[in-house]
């Protein structure tokens, strides 16, 4: 308990410092507003919002303010996705896909205002649950992570890529793994981290420094969405909003167990490396449907169903930041963009991160969730109007934003060529149902994997047992093996028969 109190007092200091700075509110209100707008517009996502702002703010303003803008946009965008889900039956972001299942029937039955009020409150509480978990668990894990050496880091990076590939695949799981391997392969370009041996540069000096993360992020997340979204589309008629958008406190009190359970699930899913808010929303919705007394009404306008997904996807934000800050492994695609922002500001997330940055992040998340709550309640009608803007009008502007953001981080035309090339490849990959998140996570973690894998072998004179001789490494190797074997039918059958025999 003493530990929690000391954490809270550290957080209090950071919170006051952030809250007393007037510039905080300029960045916070504008970024949360922008985030909600990005989330509310079908075709734009939370990842895109954070990616674009990474290019835009990246290393131009102090990291403290840059983090306010990026986290504000992240929190706002995950919440903003609920607007089109509820009013149009079109999820604004993948994270709010489960919200549409009950949100739209509620709106159709004239309870749209109530649904929006509840999602606003649930998103606020969810973000706070995730943030509290971040505040407490990040320190415990940081203490543990001090003992993590190269073998564990290499296996953890591989686990993040494999897990992301496994859970983010819409079609075959190996497509997720292939995407992860393509990302890893892209990270191999340039001088290798131990011997400075040039790899796959084809004589082009630009390639010596490897692929820059921001143009890759912009290409992978922005360009495919721009290409996909630039088509004629008749938006469905928005359900007329009835009732005031207010937090329904009796309903919140009645559903507090659901909100708490969903918050915990969202945080847990977020803490898994490479798994995003969309998975959190669906997992929480699925669990809610199974355990709730109201389970049979899920999908027909159940308040519990709505709260299950909306609380979890926002709680996932705090969870996703745990592996990012402790291990340097992004917990979700938007967290991958945040990692890029840390990197271009020369901050390396992981066991050596400055603890003040973690407290700063927690303070920003609390303020961002408060801002989101206030904007959600008082300016909701503006966002509902924004829903009517056609994609074909705002996506060209996004393309210009992407171009200037990508150019200004590196300051070179070559970065734009890289962005376009990655964008076309990512578009074709997403057409063929290859998930893009594992590719980006592969690019981000590739350097770490290469360096730590070879260092482990170097320190053990080439003995592969280095990956099983330490308990942590052994567990991670077993998890990696289980993840791969779990997808092979023969191995699955063998495990099944072994389990039956043991039971």
């Amino acid at each position, binding site marked *: 308990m003493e530990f929690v109190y000391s954490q809270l007092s550290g957080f209090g200091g950071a919170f006051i410092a952030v809250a007393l700075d007037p510039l905080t509110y300029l960045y916070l209100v504008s970024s949360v507003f922008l985030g909600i707008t990005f989330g509310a517009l079908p075709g734009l996502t939370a990842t895109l919002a954070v990616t674009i702002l990474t290019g*835009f*703010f990246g290393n*131009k*303003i102090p990291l403290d303010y840059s983090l306010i803008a990026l986290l504000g946009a992240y929190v706002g965008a995950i919440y903003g996705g609920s607007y089109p889900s509820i009013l149009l039956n079109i999820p604004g972001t993948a994270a709010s896909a489960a919200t549409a299942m009950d949100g739209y029937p509620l709106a159709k039955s004239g309870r749209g205002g109530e649904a929006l009020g509840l999602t606003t409150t649930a998103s606020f509480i969810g973000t706070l649950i995730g943030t509290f978990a971040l505040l407490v668990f990040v320190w415990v894990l940081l203490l543990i992570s001090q003992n993590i050496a190269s073998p564990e880091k290499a296996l953890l990076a591989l686990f993040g890529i494999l897990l992301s590939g496994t859970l983010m695949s819409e*079609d*075959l799981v*190996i*497509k997720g*793994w*292939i995407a992860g*391997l*393509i990302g*890893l*392969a892209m990270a*191999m370009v340039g001088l*290798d981290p*131990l*011997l*400075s*041996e040039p*790899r*796959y540069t084809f004589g082009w000096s630009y390639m010596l420094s490897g692929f820059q993360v921001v143009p890759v992020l912009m290409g992978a997340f922005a*360009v495919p969405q*721009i*290409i996909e979204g*630039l*088509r*004629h589309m008749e938006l469905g008629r928005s359900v007329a909003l009835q009732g005031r958008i207010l937090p329904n406190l009796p309903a919140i009190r009645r559903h507090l167990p659901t909100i708490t359970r969903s918050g915990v699930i969202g945080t847990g899913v977020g803490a898994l490396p490479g798994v995003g808010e969309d998975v959190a929303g669906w997992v929480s919705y699925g669990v809610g449907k199974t355990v709730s007394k109201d389970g049979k009404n899920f999908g027909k306008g159940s308040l519990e169903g709505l709260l299950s997904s909306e609380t979890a996807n926002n709680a996932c934000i705090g969870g996703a930041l745990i592996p990012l800050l402790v291990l340097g492994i992004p917990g979700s695609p938007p967290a991958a963009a945040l990692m890029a922002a840390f990197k271009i500001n020369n901050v390396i997330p992981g066991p050596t991160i400055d603890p003040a940055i973690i407290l700063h992040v927690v303070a920003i998340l609390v303020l961002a969730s408060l801002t989101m709550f206030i904007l959600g309640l008082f300016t909701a009608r503006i966002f509902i109007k924004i829903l009517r803007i*056609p994609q*074909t*009008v705002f*996506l*060209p*502007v996004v*393309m*210009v*934003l992407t*171009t*200037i953001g990508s*150019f*200004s981080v590196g*300051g070179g*035309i070559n970065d*734009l*060529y890289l*962005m*376009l090339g990655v*964008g*076309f490849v990512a578009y074709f990959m997403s*057409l*063929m*149902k290859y998930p893009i998140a594992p590719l980006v996570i592969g690019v981000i973690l590739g350097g770490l*994997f*290469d360096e730590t*894998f*070879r260092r482990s*072998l*170097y320190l053990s*004179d*080439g003995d592969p047992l280095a990956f099983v001789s330490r308990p942590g490494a052994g567990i991670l190797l077993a998890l990696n093996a289980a993840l791969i074997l779990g997808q092979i039918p023969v191995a699955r059958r063998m495990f099944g028969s072994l389990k039956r025999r043991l039971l």
Partner: protein
Amino acid sequence: MNSSDNKAVMRAQDFWAALFLFGVAAFFIWRTTFIPLFGHNRAGVSGADWYNSAALVPLGIFGGLLVLSLVLLTISIREGGARSALSAAGIGWNRAEAHRFATLAAILFFYIVGLVPRVDFILASGLLITALIFGYHHGHARRMSLAAAVVAFAGSYAVVRNLPQSDWGRHDDDLVTLALWICLTLWALVQGRGDRVARVIPAIAVAAPLILVCVMAFGFRQNVPNRGGLIFEQIEYHYYVSLKPLWSR
């Protein structure tokens, strides 16, 4: 298209994707052999042991990719992907969609490769925004072709006339882009009489790049593409010579 048709299309695409991935993986495994694996001394460091080699991890990655491409190939063949791989319907070929993508790809290619490095950013982006909204808002194939042709012409002119970096500061391509932008805007207004979106195109096309480039250059003091462009050069001059002294005194 029902879900079984979708799956058949997906497997046909997987068949080609697996072959492509196999080729790519094999190519890069061959390229990896250029990196010393055993007993070479490179970059001043002895690489006598295999576990020191910079080729080790890439070999694993491309080896893994090769194996996964074979697994994907097996799955696609088993589920009928090879049978429908050579038919247009089998791979989900859609003429309208291919036209949409080809024109968009051309617009983005000429914007990034031709216009952004050589032409004033406000002009290049204004033309891009106008072309994209005009071409794709209503989904008319002819508008898409026209939009792509205009951007391609402006981009090709810039590349052909001012290919080397030493010529990127010239303004002839700026003027051509400006002329094409004005013509396309007028055409969009004529074609879209009574259409609200057509009326807002000029405002968005002027305001968005202008605000963005000024915020980046003067707000964040960042590098922006083509500082010597026709319009931005004037803005920058008047910012530092006429405006900034007003509050710097």
